[in-house]
């Protein structure tokens, strides 16, 4: 996972949570960042907008850490670029 991707995801989380960007680091859990279930869906919504991806409910359900969130987005972006290549 690239530093750029990590920085974009943590930036979205920080902006949604109204917390300083430097507090959102890759190894933090949602619990540590005081992200509850309602905050979680709000972050998913913001990430869908940021990366123009559709995050399925089932994929989102188990995510509890910043790292899992970045990994999830990475997978969706890979699937998206693969789909775009297939179409070409």
């Amino acid at each position, binding site marked *: 996972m690239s530093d750029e991707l990590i920085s974009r995801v943590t930036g979205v989380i920080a902006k949604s949570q109204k917390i300083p960007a430097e507090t959102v680091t890759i190894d933090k859990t949602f619990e540590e960042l005081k992200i*509850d*279930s*309602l905050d979680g*869906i709000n972050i998913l*919504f913001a990430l869908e907008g940021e990366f123009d991806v559709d995050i399925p409910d*089932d994929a*989102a359900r188990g995510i509890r850490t910043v790292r899992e969130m970045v990994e999830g987005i990475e997978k969706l972006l890979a699937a998206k670029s693969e789909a775009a290549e297939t179409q070409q």
Partner: protein
Amino acid sequence: MTRRVAVTGIGAISAFGHTFPELWDGLATGKSAIRPLTLVAPGALRFPNAAEVPGYDPNRYFEEKEALLLDRFAQFAAVAAREAVRASGIEFSPDLAERTAIVLGCSGGGKSTEDDGFHHLYGLKEPRVSPLTIARAMSNAGASRVSLEYKITGPVFTVSTACSSANHALGQAFRMVRSGEVEVAIAGGSEAPLSMGFLKAWEAMRVVSPDTCRPFSRDRRGLILGEGAAVLVLEPVERARARGAAILGEIAGFGMSSDAHHITQPSALGAARAMRSALSDAQVPPEAVGYVNAHGTGTLANDVTEAEAIHSVFGEHTRKLLVSSTKSMHGHALGAAGALEAAATLGALHAGLIPPTANFTASDPACDLDVVPNTPRPAHLECAISNSFAFGGLNAVLVLRRLR
């Protein structure tokens, strides 16, 4: 003055059909009425299914011109009220109409009216919306329409507490009849939430199941939205007996509480306090309750929290308690939910048959209850409770009883 409160009329329009007998017959067979959504274009949502009212044609129930004035949710209220009043056999003289209340629950109001108007404004870039928008969309349009039909001039209002709306409405109506403030009450709830804008908002909350509603089941994946209305006619037992009315059951108590915990996460403490308050109001010990019509939305959070609350209220008696969520069959009709479930619970008390929790596949150790999975179960019942717990942490519980 404290009077016992009888139910002498029930009307319902739901995914099972346009009448209460169709609702009860459906629930009593244990078949779910959850089907593919037809009110919005397929493919636009993460979830394809809902519990829609089938074959609804406004012109069957309203003059063409009047139908234009009424959003779908207000029409449902009027259709259910008409059936309930007809069943009760009550004729409203001007004197009785002044001593009659109408209290209806509604969570969202005229969502499809707003959606349509705003589509013209933002989507089609038209500069205006219909002048009927406000009158159609206001959440009290259903209650007001019913008051016009019967010329009811007593207290008429709408209660809006999200998914608890109808239970709060029935509770207020029950207390007004019990105290003698009114002689008769027409009460329940109606909702028509299946418009694209509102469905998109539910989709974003990630609480709607991509297939069906499996309350208390280990593989539950969320709720299924429904629509419809149910209305009860309430009056003192003495009055019902004096006029020889058929008594369909009794509302024996009502309790409510607020979690003051979180805007969307449920709390077992708040839910338990509402159940205890309802039982205390009815002067019924927990051991006398045979059936719980659960809030049972089929979300991960609700069902485990509700199970914990039921255990804390009923203790050892939980083992003997039958619990089912009829939302597995008629969907979650939001502001109408409590009314459809009160109708279902009265049906269960009357028939001695528990409508099951449909679509159940595997038990969840965190929901350790007898949820009457998939198959209706005969049971002699005297007393039941019906739970409603809303977003916003607002809980409302009814105690219903067979009338000896």
